């Protein structure tokens, strides 16, 4: 965002001082900066790299002390073993189904509610909005006992709906979306109204196209949150066949014992789906965090 200013042109000497600092010639400070930055990044990638290094070792080499980074006989045997069991694939599928339900439903109900609060006046609107926003303060973790009993009564334990439905309540997104809708000028709607459009058409044809970035951000964060949610799916599933990926990995993996190559191969496989999503949507995620400051 370069803005033209009426500042007097800087003197030659000052210009040279500035240029020395920002110029292409690398100096000691810059080399140090880039070295530190690279080291920090490598340090952050280390757990991922170490998991991968372990996962391609033959099982006998994982327990060598001191630990070595590279094996002379790399093998994907551990991956074949893990995938051959099939449960990891099953859990991934379960995660995909439940996470999709959560994301779609959350987007639909939060968008409708935010639109209702943003564009209409109705009886009880202020206190209803206050009630919903107050829900942001309630930690969902403290409701696990009555929620679980409710699910038992509804017969939804060990079902996809049982995993997904309680996760749809996200008052914070209603708040964020309403603020976004409030900022959209009403001229667009007025034009549509003159053409005889009803409120549903205005939502669909005017509001939604204008809010694509925020909808993408909310969608991605709902997806990541639901995919990685542990406590609720952990409570509401007892059958390994209905478990989601984090729950299955957190509870069943103990049976692998000390086959570290296999455990790490599972960890790498379990990390992959969302890492791929992250790589594909990196730009949206970064702007999403920047724009809304959503904390799941």
């Amino acid at each position: 965002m370069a803005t033209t200013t009426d500042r007097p042109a800087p003197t030659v000497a000052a210009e040279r001082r500035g240029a020395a600092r920002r110029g292409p010639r690398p100096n000691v400070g810059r080399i140090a900066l880039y070295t530190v930055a690279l080291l920090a990044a490598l340090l952050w990638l280390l757990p991922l790299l170490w998991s991968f290094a372990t996962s391609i070792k033959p099982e006998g080499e994982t327990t060598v002390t001191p630990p070595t980074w590279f094996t002379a006989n790399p093998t994907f045997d551990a991956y074949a073993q893990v995938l051959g069991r099939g449960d990891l694939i099953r859990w991934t599928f379960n995660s995909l189904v439940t996470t999709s339900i959560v994301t779609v439903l959350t987007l639909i109900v939060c968008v409708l509610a935010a639109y209702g609060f943003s564009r209409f006046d109705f009886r009880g609107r202020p206190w209803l909005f206050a009630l919903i926003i107050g829900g942001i303060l309630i930690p969902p973790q403290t409701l696990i006992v009555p929620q679980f009993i409710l699910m038992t009564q509804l017969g939804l334990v060990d079902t996809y709906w049982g995993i997904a439905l309680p996760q749809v309540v996200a008052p914070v997104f209603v708040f964020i979306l309403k603020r976004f809708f409030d900022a959209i000028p009403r001229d667009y709607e007025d034009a549509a109204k003159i053409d005889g459009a009803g409120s549903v058409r205005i939502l669909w044809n005017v509001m939604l196209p204008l809010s694509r970035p925020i909808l993408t951000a909310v969608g991605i964060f709902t997806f990541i949150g639901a995919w990685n949610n542990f406590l609720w799916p952990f409570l509401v599933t007892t059958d390994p066949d209905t478990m989601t990926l984090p729950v299955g990995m957190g509870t069943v993996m103990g049976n692998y014992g000390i086959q570290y190559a296999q455990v790490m191969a599972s960890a790498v496989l379990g990390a992959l789906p969302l890492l791929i999503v992250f790589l594909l949507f990196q730009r949206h995620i970064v702007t999403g965090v920047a724009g809304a400051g959503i904390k799941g």
Partner: protein
Amino acid sequence: MSERTHTPRAKGAGAAGSGLVDVRRKPATWTGLWYVLPFLAFYLLFLVWPSIVGLGYTFTDRSLAGGDVSFIGFDNWNETLTDPGLYESLWNTLVFTVLSVPVMVLLALGLALLTDHARRLGWFLRLSFFAPFVLPVAVMALMWEWMYNPSLGLFNGILGQLGFEGSEWLFSENTAMVSVVIATAWWQVGFNYLLYLAAMQSIPKDVYEAAAIDGAGVWQRIGRITLPLLARTTVLITVLQLIGSLRVFEQIYLMTGGGPNFATRTVIQYIYDSGFVGLRIGFASSMAYVFMVLIIIASVAQFRLFSRKEA
């Protein structure tokens, strides 16, 4: 999948009965309520109703295993408020919060400053620092348990080669919580880091250029321009992180199970243990309510502090 709703036509409402109202001039209609209704249904069923029912459970001896339920007055509340186990888990949660919040804020700030100055590596640094945030907790726990393994792990291996004594990490009461905090920082710092980075990159360039022309060095520019302009972001991140840290459960549960000797058992885990392992619905519910009230008080206090800072 758009909700088809039949809007009752408000008497005398203009705009072809569309219900679209300019709040300042026209009478209220019911249309807005139809839009709010789906969310409200979820909200009432899965949040409000459990909150009310849960409060009722606290006055009973209900068991998860079923059986007769009788009304026992304030027994659960008395037991909760005098339970050393609750205070121990509150203390553990507090220790985790006090250790993790400064680390998660300052580390995020440091990494964001690095990224903001090392522009050429921008995408690579963003990728490295944020990638752990998208990992499922079970993946993160498996990776760190493996690195922390006292006899075979990477950390003690490196320490041993450098001639140091290895640590017990997750297996000692003295080091378990610190180990969990380190792993959590690696896992979750990326979010705060992105918030900081976005705030830094919204600072207009010409402010820096003006400072450079006046002969300010890099450190002066960070100290006099960047940090003061980031004050609001710092408050926001600290508030969010505090509330997040108080709700900690899953990574600790998976890495230590609350051990060794309950040294890392958090409040959420104690609620889970009482209700789902001990089967005592009433007792677990009263504990959950005590904790909920504490969290709400902490959150409200922080938001008030935050809005005063903003003003």
